[in-house]
C-alpha cells in the first residue's frame, strides 16, 4: 500500500491528507482513536510544510512497512522551503505568563507525542518529516 499526494498550498489542503489517513487507516482496520491521532500529527506536519515551506506545494507519502517484527504506518511530509534545525526548536511551555509569547510552536511537540517515532531531516530546500505509528505485529 502506497499513497502519494502532491498538494498546492491552498487553504485547508491539509484536509486532503487527513481524508487519506482516515481511509487508509480504516482499510487497515485501525481504531478511530489511532486514526485520529495520526490525522492530527499529519495535519500539523502539513501546516508546517505550508507555512514554512516555499508556498510552491508539498508532498505527503503514506505507506505501510514491516520492520523488526512489527508493522508500521509511515507518513512522510516533504517541502522545499528554507529548512530549519530541528534540534534548535525548543518545546513551548504551557506555563508561560499571559502575554509573554504567542501560543504557537506546538506542532512538532504534538507530532512527537502522538506518533511512535519521528525523524526530521532538514536542509535549505528540502525538509522531510518522517512519522511512524506501530499498527501491530507481522
Amino acid at each position, binding site marked *: 500500500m502506497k499513497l502519494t499526494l502532491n498538494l498546492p498550498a491552498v487553504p*485547508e489542503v*491539509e*484536509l486532503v491528507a*487527513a481524508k487519506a489517513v482516515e481511509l487508509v487507516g480504516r482499510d487497515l482496520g485501525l481504531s*478511530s*482513536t489511532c486514526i*485520529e*491521532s495520526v*490525522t*492530527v500529527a499529519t*495535519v*500539523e506536519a502539513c*501546516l508546517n510544510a505550508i507555512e514554512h515551506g516555499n508556498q510552491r506545494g508539498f508532498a505527503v507519502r503514506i505507506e505501510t512497512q514491516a520492520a523488526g517484527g512489527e508493522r508500521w504506518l509511515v507518513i512522510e511530509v516533504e517541502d522545499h522551503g528554507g529548512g530549519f534545525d530541528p534540534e534548535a526548536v525548543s518545546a513551548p511551555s*504551557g*506555563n508561560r505568563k*499571559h502575554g509573554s509569547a*504567542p*501560543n*504557537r510552536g*506546538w*506542532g512538532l*511537540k*504534538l507530532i512527537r*507525542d*502522538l506518533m511512535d517515532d519521528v525523524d526530521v531531516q532538514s536542509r535549505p530546500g528540502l525538509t522531510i518529516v518522517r512519522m511512524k505509528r506501530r499498527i501491530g505485529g507481522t
Partner: protein
Amino acid sequence: MNDQRLELSSELMAGGVGLVAAAGYINNEGGQAIADVINRLLDRGAVALLIDLEGTRIINSIGVSILLEVLEKLMEKNGRLAFCNLTPTIARTFEIMGLAEYASIFDDRETAIEELTRLNRAD
C-alpha cells in the same frame, strides 16, 4: 462537501452557563469563530463557558492555541471554561498543550452543565 467547516450554535442558560456546540474542523478560523461566540456570551452575562465538541474530529495546534488564549482571558476575570464530548485524541491534545490543566473536561453535556451551574451558585 463543506462537512468539515465548523458548525456553531450557542445558548446562554439559566445559572450563567454559556453553551457553545462546535462541530467540524477547529483551525485558525474555527478557533476564532468559537472565541467570537464566547465573547458575545460573556457580554450577555455568562460566567462559565461550556464547549461541546461532539462532531469535532479534527483540530490543529493553531485552533487550540486560540482556545488557550480564551482560557487565559477567562481566568483573569475569574470565569470558568469547560469542555465535553472530546474524542480521546482531542483530550490528549488538550493535555499536551496544557489546556486540560485549567479547563475542566466532562464526558457529556448534562454532567457538565449540572456541575458548572452548581459552581456558579457556590460563588
